[in-house]
C-alpha cells in the first residue's frame, strides 16, 4: 500500500485534488484509493493536510497517515513548518517548485527524494488563480499521477474535466503539462 500525505493551504483545492486522484485511480482500474481530508475546520490560507491510501487490495485503515511513503507539497512556503515529520526514510517528496528548489531541499533534508514540478508557474501561465495565490491543485494532480503511477494521462484528464467547476480546459491543460514535467523530473539523472 502506498500512503501519501498532501500539504497545502486552505483554498488551494487540496481536498479536491485528493478526490480527483481517487477518481483517476478508480477510472484507471485495478487499484483502490481512499482519499481523506484533514479532520475538522479548514480556513483559507491556513495549512491544510489531506491523505490518500492506494492499494491493490481493499483499503481497511481509516485513520490519518502518520508515517507516509510520500508527500505532495502544494506550497513551498510550508517547509517552514515540520511537514517532513513521519515521512519514511527514502520517501519521495513531490514539491511545487523549480529544479533548483529540489536540489536545495535535498541538501537540507538528505535521505528523501525530492522531485520538483513547476505547478505554480504552469498555473500562472494558464491564468489559474492570481500571482499571490495560484490555483495549483490540478497541476499537482497531474504531477502526482505521473510520479506515483496512479493513473494514465487520459484517465486523469477526464477526472479533472469532470471535477473542476470553472475553467475546465485550462485545468486539464495544467494537469497535462505537469504530468509531462513530472515524468521528465522522474527520469532525470539524480
Amino acid at each position: 500500500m502506498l500512503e501519501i500525505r498532501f500539504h497545502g493551504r486552505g483554498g488551494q483545492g487540496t481536498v479536491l485534488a485528493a478526490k480527483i486522484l481517487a477518481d483517476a485511480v478508480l477510472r484507471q482500474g485495478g487499484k483502490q484509493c481512499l482519499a481523506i481530508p484533514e479532520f475538522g475546520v479548514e480556513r483559507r490560507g491556513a495549512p491544510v493536510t489531506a491523505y490518500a491510501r492506494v492499494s491493490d487490495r481493499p483499503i481497511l485503515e481509516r485513520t490519518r497517515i502518520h508515517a507516509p511513503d510520500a508527500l505532495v507539497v502544494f506550497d513551498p512556503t510550508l517547509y517552514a513548518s515540520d511537514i517532513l515529520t513521519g515521512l519514511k526514510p527514502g520517501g519521495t517528496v513531490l514539491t511545487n517548485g523549480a529544479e533548483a528548489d529540489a536540489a536545495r531541499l535535498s541538501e537540507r533534508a538528505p535521505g528523501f527524494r525530492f522531485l520538483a514540478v513547476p505547478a505554480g508557474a504552469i498555473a500562472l501561465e494558464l491564468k489559474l488563480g492570481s500571482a499571490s495565490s495560484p490555483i495549483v491543485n490540478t497541476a499537482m494532480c497531474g504531477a502526482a499521477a505521473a510520479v506515483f503511477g496512479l493513473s494514465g494521462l487520459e484517465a486523469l484528464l477526464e477526472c479533472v474535466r469532470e471535477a473542476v467547476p470553472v475553467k475546465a480546459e485550462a485545468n486539464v491543460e495544467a494537469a497535462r503539462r505537469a504530468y509531462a514535467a513530472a515524468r521528465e523530473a522522474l527520469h532525470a539523472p539524480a
Partner: protein
Amino acid sequence: MKKVLSGNHAAAVAARLARVQVAAGYPITPATQVFEALAEMRAKGEFPGEFIAAESEHSVMAALLGAATAGARTFTATSSHGLAYMHELLHWVAGARLPVVMVDVNRALAAPWNLGTDQTDSLSQRDTGWMQTYCSNNQEVLDTVLMSFKIAERVMLPSMVVLDGFTLSHSYEPVDVPKQAEVDAFLPPFRPVLRLDPDQPMSFGSLTGPKDYLRLRRRMAADLAEAEDAIEEVGREFGELFGRPYGQLDAYRCEDAETVLVTSGAVGSTARAAVDALRERGLKAGNLRLRAFRPFPARALRAFVRPGTRLAVVDRNLSPGAGGIFASEIKAALYPRSGIAVHGYVTGLGGGDISVELLQEVWERVDAARGADPAPAVWAEDAR
C-alpha cells in the same frame, strides 16, 4: 456503477434512490454536505422530493413528523448539537410510529468545542425508540440508508443511520451505486395503513391514560424485538439482490478466536486490518463489529460468544459515571453468563485516531489479562 463518493454524498445519493418525498434540513458540520448534495440534485431536477430548509433542527424533525403522518417517505441528516436539539421530537416521531430515516454524522458534543468524530451524540438518543445502525465504510452508508427505509416501514419505527464524522463523511472512496430500477424492485413505495388525510379525517396522538400508554410502549418494545429479525432478513435480501449481505453483527476471522475486538463504525474497518496484522504474527485474533445498536442485538451476541471468550470492547463514546456505552450494553446482554470477560476501552473521543497499532495493543492487553477484573474501563490513545 462505481463512483467515488464521500460518506455524506453516499447518503444523499441513497436518499434520492429511495425516492424520498420530503427532506428537511438545517446545516451543521460535518453533516451539511448531505443537504448540499440533495439541493444540487434538486436544482438539476434529479431529486423531485420536497426540500424544506428549516429554521432549526427541532423544526426539521417537527416538519418530518407532519410529512410522515401524511404518508410521505421522509429523510434528514444532522450531527452532534443538531441531534441534541432534536431530542424532544425524536421521542414524538418514535411514539407516533413514523418511519423517518435520518443520517447522524457522529461528532463530539461541547464543551469544549470539538468537531471530531465521537459516538456520544447518537448514543445519547438510545432511549427515544429510534433504531440505530453504525456503518464502517461509504458503501455501507448508501446500502444502510436503503435498507433502513425498508426495515423502518416494516416495523413502523424511525431509523438512524450513523457514520463517523470526517473519517467517513468527508473521505472519498469508490461506491457501487445501484440502478434506480434495482432499488425500486427492493424498496416499494411507502403505503402506510393510517395517514393524515383530509378526505378521511382522523386525530392522531391525543391524550392517553396510563393503561393505554403502557400497552403502546409494550407494543413498541415488541416491534423493536421483531426489528432484530427484520434487520437480518432485509440484510439477506439486500445481499441476494446487490451482492452485499448485512446483518446485526459482522464477525471477521472469529471462528477460532478466544479474544475478540468488539468495534462499531469505521473503527470496525480499521480493526480488520489490525486482526490481519495480529494473525500474521500467529495470534488468534478476531473482530466483531456491531452494526445494530438499537434494537440491541442481544440474541445474536449470546449466540456468538462461547465459554472462555474475551471481548475487548472499543468505545469511542462515554456515559460519564458509567463508562463506555457499548461495553455496558454488552455486559447487560451477556449477564449472567459465566466465563466471558468483557474488557472496556474508552479511546478516540473527540476524533482521536483509533489506529491499527492501538487496536493491536488493546487486543494483546486483553488477551494477556487472564483472570483480571475487567470492571473499570481503560482509557487509551494513539501515541501520535
